[in-house]
């Protein structure tokens, strides 16, 4: 039966190349946009080096204090994590590191701007960086405040023209560091581990950060198993309620351990930033609404084109109805035809989106990005195409099936 439908579909599509072309154009463009967005989201959110163990990770990226008249939003402070986030149940490893800061290096007349992260030793055990040269610095290096640094490949390119950099020194923000390792680039949409080079926390120009509750630091906990994640979140939230805040004008501190998606959701519009609860579901709802808004126009367009095509085939439908084809068969036939068409358009969109993504990667629009169509994105693309095919096929199919045989044979409905 399905084979029969498909043969029919191809025959119909070939008969009116103009309609087929405009349908395919609309479908492939719509799916192209959705696929590019999906591939970008996948690149930002899916587990991959250096966050391969992301499914066991929870992080505190933002911290907020609220009072009756005041709100203060920033990162957490070093002391908040050092004093209160250690020894959480189920945590295999906790790392505390700075959010990135911009620093300048001068090579003769040339200025090189880099994003720098100051980290502890555990950072290198929680995140699995790929080392091209050397190795990470250890906790001992951090404790002794040694001026050592791990560069990314792109930074080695800029500072040492791509030559092996191990043991060489460079200056940044008036401090001199010795290179102990070089790692593969991290795209800057991987906001948590991204930086151009990494140095020990203790190389900060002043140690005032050690006494801060708010400002400049991120903590990431690697749980033993995924089952430990809720426990970690709850325990830290409970500990936060017991902290006496240094500033009396604030009464609550919201800094929950969250997955990456929930962290991003917390910054999105409509999120309840005062609540330590997960904000992910709200963002999902928002994204679904936006996607539906975006596909409204393409759907209406495709429905209109489809109805035109049906009316054109009115006499065929009339004959089939006159010979007793049930409504169900006709609806199924048309929906299958439409899904087949959207899958075809989807395939076209997929090929086009590969080109668009490559252009995006080369434009440097997002630093060090490597957007690709992987198996996961492909699966989403197929789902999107089928969904779009169903949405835009059902109404025209219903219209078609309702045609009365006599009218249909006459060449379409009078009204």
């Amino acid at each position: 039966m399905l084979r029969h439908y498909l043969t029919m579909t191809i025959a119909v599509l070939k008969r009116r190349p103009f309609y087929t072309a405009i349908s395919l154009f609309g479908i492939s463009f719509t799916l192209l946009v959705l696929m590019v967005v999906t591939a970008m989201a996948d690149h930002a959110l899916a587990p991959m080096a250096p966050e391969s163990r992301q499914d066991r990770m929870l992080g505190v990226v933002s911290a907020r204090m609220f009072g009756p008249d005041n709100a203060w939003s920033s990162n957490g402070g070093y002391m908040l994590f050092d004093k209160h986030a250690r020894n959480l149940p189920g945590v295999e490893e906790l790392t505390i590191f700075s959010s990135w800061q911009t620093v300048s290096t001068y090579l003769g007349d040339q200025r090189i701007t880099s994003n720098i992260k100051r980290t502890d030793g555990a950072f290198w055990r929680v995140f699995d960086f790929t080392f091209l040269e050397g190795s990470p610095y250890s906790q001992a290096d951090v404790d002794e405040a040694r001026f050592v640094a791990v560069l990314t490949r792109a930074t080695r390119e800029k500072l040492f023209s791509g030559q092996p950099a191990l043991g060489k020194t460079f200056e940044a923000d008036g401090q001199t560091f010795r290179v102990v390792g070089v790692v593969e680039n991290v795209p800057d949409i991987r906001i948590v581990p991204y930086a151009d080079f990494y140095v020990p926390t203790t190389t900060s120009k002043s140690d005032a950060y050690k006494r801060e509750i708010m400002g400049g630091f991120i903590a990431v906990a690697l749980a033993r198993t995924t089952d430990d994640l809720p426990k970690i979140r709850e325990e830290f939230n409970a500990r936060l309620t017991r902290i006496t805040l240094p500033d009396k004008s604030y009464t609550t501190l919201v800094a929950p351990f969250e997955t990456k998606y929930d962290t991003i959701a917390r910054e999105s519009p409509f999120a309840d930033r005062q609540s330590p609860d997960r904000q992910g579901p709200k963002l999902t709802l928002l994204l679904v609404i936006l996607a539906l808004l975006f596909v409204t126009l393409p759907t209406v367009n495709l429905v209109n084109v489809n109805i035109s095509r049906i009316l054109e085939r009115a006499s065929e439908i009339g004959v089939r109805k006159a010979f007793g084809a049930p409504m169900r068969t006709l609806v199924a036939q048309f929906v299958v035809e439409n899904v087949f068409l959207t899958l075809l358009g989807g395939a076209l969109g997929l090929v086009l989106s590969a080109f668009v993504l490559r252009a995006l990667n080369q434009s440097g629009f997002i630093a060090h990005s490597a957007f690709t169509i992987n198996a996961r994105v492909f699966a989403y693309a197929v789902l999107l195409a089928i969904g779009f095919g169903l949405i835009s096929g059902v109404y025209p199919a219903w219209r078609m099936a309702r045609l009365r045989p006599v009218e249909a044979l006459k060449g379409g409905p009078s009204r």
Partner: protein
Amino acid sequence: MTRHLVRLIWNRKRQNLLLTIEILCSFLVLFVVILIGLNFSVNASKTLGFDTDRVWSVDVGRPPSPNARADEAAAKAAEARERETFQRLLVAARELPQIEIAAVAFTAPYINASWESGLELADGRKIDYLYNRVGDDFTRVFSMPIEAGRGFSREDDAAAADPVLINVELARKVFGNANPVGQVIPQKFDKAQKPADPPQRKKRVVGVIEDFRQHGKYSMPQPVLIDRLRLDVEDGGRAERIVIRLKPGTTASFEPVLVRRLQREAADWSFEVSTMEHLKERKHSDYIMPLTVLAILAGFLLLMVTLGLTGVVWQSVIQRLREFGLRRAAGASGRSVRGQVMAEMAVMTTFAVLAGVLLVGQLPFLPLPEDLVIPGGVFAAAIALSAAAIYCLTLACGWYPSRLAARMPPAEALRYE
């Protein structure tokens, strides 16, 4: 004739409703892009109020200071030391031969840090404005045209009321047509103030600047109020950066020299130099990038609609060839048949545009923040432009199919299968 047309459209209401919805959606998409684009170009034609030629900004980073509410004495002492260091930095910068003028500031043009504030006037009106706090010479660094009065100077040291600079828009809002220079802003002071709050002080206007559109030429003009930043007194305001204007001919190689000189004065502070040119580009792309992405998407959507509508009209013309043939046989000219197809298109577009105007007409009634409110003229122009564009688009879609209808000889049309 019109009634007849409407009846013809009504007879095919289901399909025409879907077409009208499609045209309505296209109108909304076009409207959004045109509104944003038009608003940017209107804003870009207004005065900026400063000139960033040869200006650099040195972002000053310092270690966190003790919390004032936790340990007041320590916080005060640390603040005094910071101010002293800042003064030394400013003196060091001014002594460098490559620097023409230098000033301290809270924020500067094209920098992301901005401060919005508001004041309540004695007559109960509330005015929101963009706030900044700058040292003497700031207006000279940015060659800011001063409409009336003067910039900040040492004359203001002993003033009883806080000296402020305001822009023309704020001056007009507060003082109307009266000369604002030397006047105190008629603020309503809160009588039930808590003792912990900072004392409320009078603000006296010392000068009126043309404007200070911190976020660049695409941003909405808004009221601006600038306070005087002082490093020699307590509560003189927090400086975040030093802005400098270089002597002509100074190259980028001066940058490391400057940073090393400043670093000598404050070893545990950080300095981040950016050229205004670079900051400007980045700020402008914050506005232009989203618009470009939106415009590209809208362009493709409209191309899709154009093709789709053409296909649909074509199909319906072919389906109605017999009807047209009959009209031709009864003596109607090819032109009048063509006119009928185009007029049907125009009537549907009119319905769609009316619905669209009704929808977007709700926007001005939404409680939007003041800097998002788009002036009525721009709003009306955007509606008119997008309506015109939609008429052009739908009529273009009807052009070829209607020609087909008009060209077909009546005899052939009547027996067309």
